[in-house]
């Protein structure tokens, strides 16, 4: 029986699942794709973005990465749940919410 998050996959059997679904390592939330809950996704128009960074701190899931150069990058869709707070916060209309086609 493995006790690592990577082995807790949808094919794990009842004999191999850990008791209580306990996980025996830290920081495992980075390995869990919570972005698949999303129905709407934010899309950025880089021509309109002024890098004011009002969007990054309001993201509840830290899905707007800000690099060492002080500029935001594209959305981290692995975690972004499409709440749209960033789109509302953007003063320049640079973020549009669109239907997330899967």
């Amino acid at each position, binding site marked *: 029986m493995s006790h690592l998050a990577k082995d807790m996959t*949808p094919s794990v059997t009842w004999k191999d*699942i850990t008791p*209580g*679904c*306990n*996980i025996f*390592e830290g920081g495992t939330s980075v390995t869990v794709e919570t972005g698949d809950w999303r129905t709407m996704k934010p899309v950025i128009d880089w021509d309109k973005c002024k890098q004011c960074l009002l969007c990054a701190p309001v993201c509840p899931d830290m899905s707007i990465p800000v690099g060492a150069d002080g500029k935001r990058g594209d959305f981290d869709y692995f975690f972004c749940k499409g709440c749209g707070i960033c789109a509302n916060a953007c003063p320049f209309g640079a973020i549009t919410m669109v239907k997330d086609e899967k």
Partner: protein
Amino acid sequence: MGIRERLSGNEAVAYAMKQINPDVMGAFPITPSTEIPQYFSTYVDNGEVDTEFIAVESEHSAMSTCIGAEAAGCRAISATSSCGLCYMTEMLYVAASDRLPITLAVSCRALSGPININNDHSDAMGVRDCGWLMLFAETNQEAYDNYLQAMRIGEAVSLPIMICQDGFITSHAIENIELVETEKVKEFVGEYKPQHFLLNKDEPMAVGAYATPVYYMEAKRQQAQAMMDAKEVIKKVGAEFAAMTGREYGLIEKYMMDDAEEAIIIIGSSAGTAKEAIQNLRAQGKKVGLIKIRSFRPFPAEDIAEALKNVKAFAAMDKDDSFNAHCGPIFAETAAALYAAGISAPKGINYIYGLGGRDVRVESIEHVFAELEKVAATGETGETYRYLDVRE
């Protein structure tokens, strides 16, 4: 030879706790189990144990304390009764599904309403599907002995365990008791060395996970297996305990069942009353016997079916009611056990008895056997869902 003493059931359980010296007790008082944490807190105050005693604001918090402590790698205990047990219910499920072998002493008491502080099994039976192991005692001696075996059983299958005794009848009545020497207790119970625990700095660990539908059922199936595996563990620990004390314990106790034609199935202190009735009836030449359920969880379906297969009629005695317009839990599970084993010959009836401290007398049980004699003679059960000793 152990130590001869005279103790109430609550004292006996508290004394067992002292001998074991667990790591953490989280407790909130409620009649009739209050004395257990009360006696135990005295031991803590006198330095007779080095247990961390955490006085909390509710039973929900008492069980939460135990969950945290047990997950941390400690032996955690509590005690409660009645609505206190109800109030723990949410956390009882968490303790079981997180596979934490907490030990909970229950002095069984009726539930409101009408408000009542006396004994029946409504509280324990109300939480019977929480996933806890549940042992019931007939006497103070059994409450003490069950408690000494509890941690060995729970820890072997990673499930929490309830040690139930009858409120007031057992918890407050002082009886002769034979205690096991403390060194022997410590050797028997041993140290708790969990494979994984939160305070292990070398292995970070997450407890109490969220399981999506893809995982939840596998977790539950594994939990169900632990309960099935517990049957053998209870028997094995009981055999070891017998080797130490001479007092034998299994899943059930059979009394005068070898040639019995009529039998009752019962839990708790009333088994003693029933044995008296059976002695009287045996003196009259009647072939009557008793099955006492010690382990209600896991339910000893195979043992009960085997013990009942040759009787003509049986009565399942429920000291609580399921209010399903049909029967109490012992009848339901006994009937299911027989059906699953393909045994259909014995006629069964159900008595709801002793609610809210209603006295259960020898004559009460003799009345049940008189009714069983009629059922056996005619093959007709009549109404199967009956109340005993209620004014018509």
